[in-house]
């Protein structure tokens, strides 16, 4: 039976891999990336609840319209919300304002304030909405769509290549690490202590670093073998067509940005 760590690595690889989908022809990747950046940025710096709630609704609508797996998608905003809640728990206790209730932990007296609670809820909703909208776009476009969108924004060609390499190699290396770990565990014939488990893990990390170095060395040769110009990789990414959906999405994003800047929501 595989250990928890090996299983975790395999699941992580599958998760990263699941977003490595083909390019979605429904949307223009560049417009999607621009919209994602506008909406994520706007909601992350918004005030009040209206905009985060609106963006959350838009995220769900996008996922439903594109028939993406909503149950899988839900896990990410939920996880983000739990994390944000944990991080912001001290806020109601450290913010001064109208006291709702008192708490006593021995000699420590804590005051729970309405202003602190408001700040906490706003923070959690902003973080959850920002995570939700970006995840929706990532689900619709996949990693490759996002990279293609960034290439459309004229990021350096080398950076695009690097991001694509990461998309391919992160799951490969995670799986390799899981295999290495399983190979080591299969040779452990007695019950071992936690300290020894960490010893085994550290040998996997060392091996992984060596393999990464070797793979990088060969990969560099493979790229150079098919690079014919002294200036490197300089061609243009073929531009995708802009449809009515793209225009609607961009208009909506810009509208949200404008109303947020004007302080209307």
């Amino acid at each position: 039976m595989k250990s928890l760590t090996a299983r975790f690595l395999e699941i992580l690889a599958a998760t990263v891999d699941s977003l490595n989908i083909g390019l979605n022809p429904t949307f223009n990747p560049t417009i999607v990336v621009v919209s994602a950046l506008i909406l994520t940025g706007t909601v992350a710096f918004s005030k009040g609840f209206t905009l985060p709630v609106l963006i959350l609704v838009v995220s769900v609508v996008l996922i439903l319209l594109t028939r993406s797996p909503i149950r899988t998608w839900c896990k990410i905003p939920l996880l983000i919300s739990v994390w944000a809640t944990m991080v912001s728990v001290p806020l109601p206790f450290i913010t001064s304002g109208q006291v709702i209730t008192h708490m006593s932990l021995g000699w420590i007296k804590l005051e729970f304030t309405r202003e602190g609670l408001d700040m906490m809820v706003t923070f959690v909703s902003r973080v959850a909405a920002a995570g939700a909208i970006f995840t929706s776009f990532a689900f619709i476009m996949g990693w490759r769509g996002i990279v293609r969108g960034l290439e459309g924004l004229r990021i350096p060609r080398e950076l695009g290549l690097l991001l694509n390499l990461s998309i391919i190699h992160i799951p490969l290396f995670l799986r390799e690490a899981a295999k290495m770990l399983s190979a080591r565990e299969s040779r452990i014939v007695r019950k071992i202590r936690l300290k020894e488990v960490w010893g085994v893990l550290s040998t996997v990390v060392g091996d992984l670093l060596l393999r990464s170095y070797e793979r990088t060395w060969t990969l560099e040769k493979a790229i150079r073998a098919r690079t014919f110009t002294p200036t490197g990789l300089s061609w243009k990414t073929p531009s995708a067509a802009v449809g009515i959906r793209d225009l609607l999405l961009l208009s909506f994003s810009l509208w949200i940005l404008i109303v947020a800047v004007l302080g209307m929501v």
Partner: protein
Amino acid sequence: MLLRVENIYFKYPGGIEVLKGANFSADKGEVVAVIGPNGSGKTTLLLIAAGLLEPQKGLVLLGEKPLREQLPQARKRIGLVFQEPDDQLFNPTIYDEISFALRQLLSCEGEVDKKVRQVAEEFNLTGLLSRPPYRLSVGEKRRVTFASVLAYEPDVLLLDEPTANLSGKYVEETEQIVSHARDAGKAVVIVSHDVEFVAKVSDRVYVIKDGSVVGGSNAKSILSDESLLSLADMRPPLVLQTLRVLKPMLRDYPLTIKDLAEVTCARAYGDQ
């Protein structure tokens, strides 16, 4: 000679000397094999021939001019197929993999698209164009490595262990690809320790041992020289091993199953 590798000495930083005076040459329409045991420096020799490693001593000539002076433009004349497809394939999709070199050579995206689809059809990859290369089987990955290199029509084709980990069907495909490349006038250099494959496709063979070439001549005389092969820790082709049993009865030395059948038939008819 289209490609000539002369007196190469190479040592990895902090490592042992991998190549000690290795040399080989290959001409248009010729398949040359460099055979030798694991760790004999075959892959390093191929990387040097492709201009990807700089030897400490020696010269690589492409079309009678030093390769070093022609880089990086000369790389479009050399196609290198790596032993491990995962090491060679670095693009997100097979389409991008095939078009990687073409986009540098062709100015119009329409031309690139047309060429990619033509090459994909040739290599039976049309239905796989949008898939990531690492999700394919080893045999399919091997096809993609050939397609991505042959798409830009290099004059020299360098193949590092092209049959490693391949099942019979894909080995046959590789044989056909090599034969087509020879017929198209390309110089093909294969490094391998698969003597069966080398016997089928190569015109000339060099034997490398501990970084030095210990023998080089036409395929038939090298692959039937058991003492030379054993010097390089290699076994002769299976047919030749079988032939040991039949040796007293035959006059010629076949290297392939087909040759053996012909010789045996000739012997049989001769007897009649």
